[in-house]
């Protein structure tokens, strides 16, 4: 929980804004304000090092405007991405996209949960919440990955599958279950990274990795903090409390054995330095792909099964 003296993300943002103002003034007026600016910059660096975020603050960072979406990473880390469309049955979901690409030079199959960058794009992509067609397209792309021996790289970023009337009519639960099943059957290595939000089954549908990684300020949970708060307290405004209870941050998940590695973000969040965030993500995913590359298809299959088989907490009498 937060203590009153600990710097918060808000403190940092205020200080950053102040520095930007001074820099602007210096630029426009031609004055040299270095004497005023350098202690402020030092203070900012110091605070960034001290800041330890509450779980709710991390959830907010995972959602902050300007947070890099899957495509921001793909633009920086891949070449020759060929987006493939459609589930061959009903339509083309824009919240879950994918296709082959070269990940820092390595041919892979990408599965991407894409939230959208401006308002129009966000609406078109339902803010990253898929209809069943998204999962059915993912299944089709996994078929291709198997056929052409392309490792799968999945970037997870969704508040959850879309809870709509038509989604239910077309079997949202069925599509997610089939995607989980298809991914568990892949005879190629799979590396998944939660880059922002990992909401429930909608995220897990493309989360069956030989390795599952998570960005430092991303979250992954069975339910969103708002959803949990409205169930527990009938009040979604209690989301900060729910976030604490759900233990949904990267360090929590590492402790539970649900992820293998936390990918560090630039101080203050990935949005402050997208290039640096992308570099860290690229390095981690590539390293895991290369490590897995030495194994056989049977090992990828059985290793993945064993990884998920052991997850859970219970005692035995």
């Amino acid at each position, binding site marked *: 929980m937060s203590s009153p003296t600990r710097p918060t993300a808000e403190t940092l943002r205020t200080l950053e804004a102040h520095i930007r103002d001074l820099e602007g003034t210096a630029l426009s007026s031609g004055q040299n304000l270095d004497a005023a600016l350098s202690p402020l910059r030092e203070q900012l660096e110091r605070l960034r090092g001290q800041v330890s975020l509450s779980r709710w603050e991390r959830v907010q960072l995972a959602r902050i405007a300007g947070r890099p979406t899957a495509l921001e990473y793909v633009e920086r880390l891949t070449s020759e991405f060929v987006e493939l469309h459609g589930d061959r049955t009903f339509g083309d979901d824009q919240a879950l996209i994918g296709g082959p690409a070269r990940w820092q030079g390595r041919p892979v199959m990408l599965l991407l949960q894409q939230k959208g960058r401006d308002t129009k794009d966000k609406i078109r992509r339902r803010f990253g919440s898929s209809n069943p067609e998204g999962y059915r397209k993912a299944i089709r792309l996994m078929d291709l990955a198997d056929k052409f021996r392309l490792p799968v790289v999945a970037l997870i970023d969704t508040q959850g*599958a*879309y*809870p*709509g*009337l038509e*989604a*239910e*009519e*077309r*079997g*949202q*639960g*069925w599509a*997610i*279950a*089939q995607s*989980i*099943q298809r991914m*568990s*059957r892949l005879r190629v290595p799979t590396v998944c990274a939660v880059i922002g939000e990992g909401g*429930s*089954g909608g995220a*897990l*549908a493309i*989360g*069956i990795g030989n390795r599952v990684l998570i960005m430092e300020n991303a979250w*992954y*949970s*069975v*339910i969103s903090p708002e*959803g*949990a708060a409205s*169930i*527990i*307290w009938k009040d979604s405004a209690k989301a900060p409390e*729910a976030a604490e*209870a*759900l*233990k*949904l941050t990267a360090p*929590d*998940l590492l402790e*539970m054995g*649900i992820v293998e590695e936390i990918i560090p973000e630039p101080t203050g969040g990935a949005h402050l330095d997208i290039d640096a965030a992308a570099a860290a993500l690229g390095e981690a995913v590539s390293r895991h792909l290369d490590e897995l590359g030495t194994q056989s298809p049977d090992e990828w299959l059985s290793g*993945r*099964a064993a990884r*998920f*088989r052991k*997850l*859970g*907490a*219970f*005692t*035995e*009498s």
Partner: protein
Amino acid sequence: MALDKFFRRRRPQVNPVAETETPDLWGKCPQCKENVYLRDLAAGAYVCPSCGLHHRLGASRRAEVLCDSPLEQWSGRVHPVDALKFHDTESYPERLKRAQLKTGRPDAILTGRGSIEGVDVVVAIMDFEFSGGSMGSVVGEEIARAAERAAQMGLPLVLVAASGGARMQESALSLMQMAKTTIALEALSARGLPYISVLTDPTTGGVTASFATIADVIVAEPGALIGFAGPRVIQQTIRQSLPEGFQRAEFLLEHGMVDMIVDRRQQRSDLAKLLRLLMHQPVPVAQAQAASSQAASTQVAP
């Protein structure tokens, strides 16, 4: 409405009625308001004889209705733990204790070996009376073990789903059970053994998005609520009222999501018939004789 409430309302002093007892009383059906003699209700698989309402069943009663004789029970040794130290309006251990006292089992699942009209099966039955049948680590583990053991023994698996979804108090660990169960069921596929799921009222959330809907054959009970997102959440999203019968078994059959809707009183014979077909087992002698004599009489009468 839960069956225990149905009993309790008539005779509050019988509180709680042990699940296996059948008190010699009558109660009013919550749907058709007819008076039903409870012994008749029990004899009719807890389906209202006048309107056909399928009462929700706890796992023990479900096992009685489904299987020929008492199960060789496997579950019961795996117990839940509070790995997250989860506390909301009360602590998770307090919630668990209450549910355990209510149901007499450590978590929301009953598994074991039994038979359905003579066909040997492994059954896994979710217990809605335990914390709304929510899926935590124990439910996931027991289902995984039941699937793996069925595969080892060369037996089919019949799973009865009844769940409000994932168990929030186990957060991401609960979520991972969706993957664990789905993967464990591969053992049955690998050996060509049938896996049949029976979706009962209600089957929602994470259960619908994992093991319950990847069965070889999906059976639903009449009127059961089945879906991924809950109706209330959908209503909040789309801001319009939901059509009559939305997410009910009949709606899902119409949309191609389940293989068949089977009245509970018919389930034993329908499941046995299906399993015998899928497992290349012969028609039982008594039934074969009955069928041939029927065929003979049909031939006589043109």
